[in-house]
């Protein structure tokens, strides 16, 4: 699916995701993790690549043993979501910042996270193994 580069697209994205993950093979934790990871990556694209193309491509696949989500963002600069420092989590409350927290959650919760950038196009693939 291709969705407008806007937080408002989350409704449509979740609708599609819910329909695919309604399958009884998919455990509750995997549903939660995939929703969260997809939202965090998508909202990062919206926030940090405002000059990219008008739509972002999202493909969701339910396999035998895992769910895979691929996001494609065109007309953007490179930003490797798999690299980069973990945010400072042990600071006292008044020094804690929200920046980097979304990606930290994604990296901790998903089983696979891949990033590729070529010709102004970023492709991010995340994988969550189904649990039983």
């Amino acid at each position, binding site marked *: 699916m291709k969705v407008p580069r806007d*937080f*408002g697209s*989350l*409704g449509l994205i*979740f609708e599609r995701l819910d329909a695919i993950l309604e399958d009884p093979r998919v455990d*509750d*934790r995997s549903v*939660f993790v995939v*929703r*969260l990871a997809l*939202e*965090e990556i998508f*909202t990062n694209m919206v926030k940090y690549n405002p000059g990219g193309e008008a739509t972002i491509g999202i493909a969701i696949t339910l396999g035998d043993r895992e769910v895979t989500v691929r996001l494609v963002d065109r007309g953007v600069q490179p930003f490797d979501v798999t690299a980069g420092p973990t945010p400072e*989590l*042990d600071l006292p*409350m*008044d020094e*804690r910042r*929200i920046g980097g*927290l*979304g990606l*930290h*959650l994604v990296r*901790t*919760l998903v089983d696979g996270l891949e990033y590729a950038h070529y010709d102004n196009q970023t492709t991010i693939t995340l994988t969550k193994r189904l649990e039983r």
Partner: protein
Amino acid sequence: MFAIATGNQGEVILQGRFDASRADEANKVFDQVTTTTRVNFGGLEYISSAGLGVLLKTQKRLAGTGHALVLYNMNKLIRDVFRIARFDVIFKIEEQSGS
């Protein structure tokens, strides 16, 4: 679906899914909170970093006057998110509420 409301004991009640598209709506309610306030997570099934951001902003502001949010009835998945983000040391999180 997301709903945020104030209960008749002054607690904030969250329901449904708290995602990035709901942050503005949530901020409007949390901006009204000025004293120590309980937040009922019982009906909330999902939260992302946007939601954590609203809560953190509120907690920081309340700390200025010696107040805080008290979070209760979280499901296990949301509890895990708080733990991974180390928000469980920033917020008082209660297990099953007495009522």
